[in-house]
């Protein structure tokens, strides 16, 4: 039934206690359209029964103080960012009705990408877009929606098509996206227009209540101060200047096609969380004690070759196994563009003591998988250290006389096993068996941790054993 009394809606605070000075009136200029739109919103919030659930976002602009007035949840946000904030507010509180109230500078200029993306994601929020064709708050500068020829503080000679371009049509722009559900433009421009704006705003809120997705109403709204016209002339001004460019009406409405969607979250038990994070404690592993030979303890190892030779995963195999064997370990890759086809290297430390620097200038061990790596890093190996290289691929011999050198035909051996790309694992097998740094069983059992492609685990185990066997022949 129609109300018998039209009065200040309950969506408003009785008294605007957050406002300094006079708690009874708004801060808006006489005749400002923001006031009308506030009334329509407050009335809709009351009538739709959503006051407890509603969170209204105050933007930057003349409506920065929206939170003075609405007896709802309130949050004030940075210039243009309301759609991003609204996105998270709604996702965190799916039950809330989130309203993003924004001006044209806020929404269409500085926040242009934020509204576009939120609309395209189909965020379940309602946007009230107040288009007054100007920056009201900062003193009447050009807005993306200012009209051609319009004189503003920053277009003193009028908006120029060739300088500022034409005024931006936001609902049309958003209507070209598949994401939004309901888009309409209306105006606060006299009795019949206001009734349509009122309806549009309710439709937009209902769209969110029904779980149908993104809704926005663009409302052409008077800024008598910015336009420098009397309030009573402002509607004629709008009709003459704005209506020819900004057509009123629904530009998109797919509410009927959209299935209602309400986001829900499950609460997991601690055990489930641990399980889902892959942190469940594995079966204890029992490794034979290691047979470390003197001189090979606490190594820092550099593995180097081409990207794609499995350098990084060979390092990860060693480090994973080291950890399981009770050693302190670290692994650090060279990262970035080098990974894309260039040289790749990584450092692995295996130590009985806490590891300080995870990289060293002079590694104890170098595993070189290609010639450039051998040539580049051989001089760095610590005197008395160990150099292993893939003698299938590297056609030169190392020169150093003060280090131990192992030529391993790793690629040939891998080829013989049927997969050239397992030279890395063979090298690791040789290293482990030769130095006794850990038991080959440790590395075999932890292989699945380092090898992402599960179907390759068995083949790698074979390669590992081939390396261990090779070491026995040395």
């Amino acid at each position, binding site marked *: 039934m*129609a*109300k*018998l*009394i*039209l*009065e*200040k*809606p309950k969506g*408003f605070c009785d008294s605007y206690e957050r406002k300094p000075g006079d708690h*009874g*009136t*708004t801060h*808006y*200029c*006489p*005749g*400002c*359209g*923001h*006031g*009308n739109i*506030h*009334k*329509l919103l*407050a009335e809709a919030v009351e009538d739709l029964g959503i006051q407890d659930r509603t969170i209204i976002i105050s933007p930057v602009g003349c409506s920065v103080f929206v939170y003075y*007035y609405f007896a709802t949840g309130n949050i004030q946000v940075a210039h243009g960012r309301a759609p991003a904030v609204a996105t998270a507010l709604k996702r965190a509180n799916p039950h809330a009705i989130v309203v993003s109230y924004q001006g044209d500078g806020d929404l269409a200029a500085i926040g242009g990408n934020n509204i576009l993306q939120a609309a395209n994601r189909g965020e379940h929020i309602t946007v009230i877009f107040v288009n007054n064709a100007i920056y009201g708050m900062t003193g009447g500068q050009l807005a993306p929606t200012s009209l051609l020829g319009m004189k503003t503080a920053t277009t003193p000679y009028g908006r120029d098509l060739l300088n500022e371009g034409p005024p931006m049509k936001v609902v049309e722009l958003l209507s070209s996206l598949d994401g939004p559900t309901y888009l309409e433009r209306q105006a606060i421009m*006299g*009795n019949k227009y*206001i*009734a349509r704006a*009122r309806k549009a705003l309710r439709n937009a809120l209902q769209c969110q209540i029904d779980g149908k997705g993104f809704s926005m109403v663009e409302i052409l709204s008077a800024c*008598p101060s910015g336009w420098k016209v*009397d*309030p*009573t002339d402002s*509607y004629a001004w709008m009709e003459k200047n704005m209506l020819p460019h900004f057509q009123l009406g629904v530009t998109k409405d797919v509410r009927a096609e959209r299935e209602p969607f309400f986001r829900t979250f499950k609460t997991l038990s601690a055990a489930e969380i641990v399980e889902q994070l892959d942190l469940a404690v594995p079966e204890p592993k029992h490794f034979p004690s290691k047979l470390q030979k003197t001189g090979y303890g606490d190594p820092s190892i550099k593995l180097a070759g081409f990207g794609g030779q499995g350098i990084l995963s060979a390092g990860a195999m060693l480090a994973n196994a080291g950890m399981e064997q009770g050693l302190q370990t670290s692994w650090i890759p060279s990262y970035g563009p080098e990974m894309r086809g260039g040289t790749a290297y990584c450092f692995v430390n295996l130590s009985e003591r806490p590891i300080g620097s995870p990289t060293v200038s002079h590694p104890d061990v170098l595993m070189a998988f290609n010639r450039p790596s051998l040539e580049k890093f051989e001089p760095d190996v610590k005197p008395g250290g160990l150099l292993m290289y893939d003698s299938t691929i590297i056609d030169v011999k190392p020169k150093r006389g003060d280090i131990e050198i192992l030529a391993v035909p790793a690629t040939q051996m891998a080829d013989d096993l049927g997969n050239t790309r397992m030279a890395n694992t063979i090298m690791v097998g040789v290293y482990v068996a030769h130095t006794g740094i850990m038991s080959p069983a440790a590395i075999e059992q932890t292989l699945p941790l380092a090898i992402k492609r599960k179907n390759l685990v068995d083949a790698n185990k074979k390669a590992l054993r081939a390396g261990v066997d090779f070491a026995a022949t040395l």
Partner: protein
Amino acid sequence: MSRILEEAITVVSAEHCKGCGLCVQACPQAVLALMSSFNSKGYHPAHYVGEGCTGCGMCFYACPEPAAITVYKKGAEYPDQEGR
């Protein structure tokens, strides 16, 4: 004291009114006008001339100031207070 209205009444709160004149412009019956006197903020507030209101509510929606205008339609309970 209150009474049930036999005719609609529009009440303008002079202290909330900013004298923009939009209600005057909106009223189809032309029964609203700006006063020649000032309110405490220095505006000429609107007022209801006393008869002819149909309770259409146009002025209510035309008014940007939430607490400035109250429209009591025919049949509404009207708080009869001096000075409203």
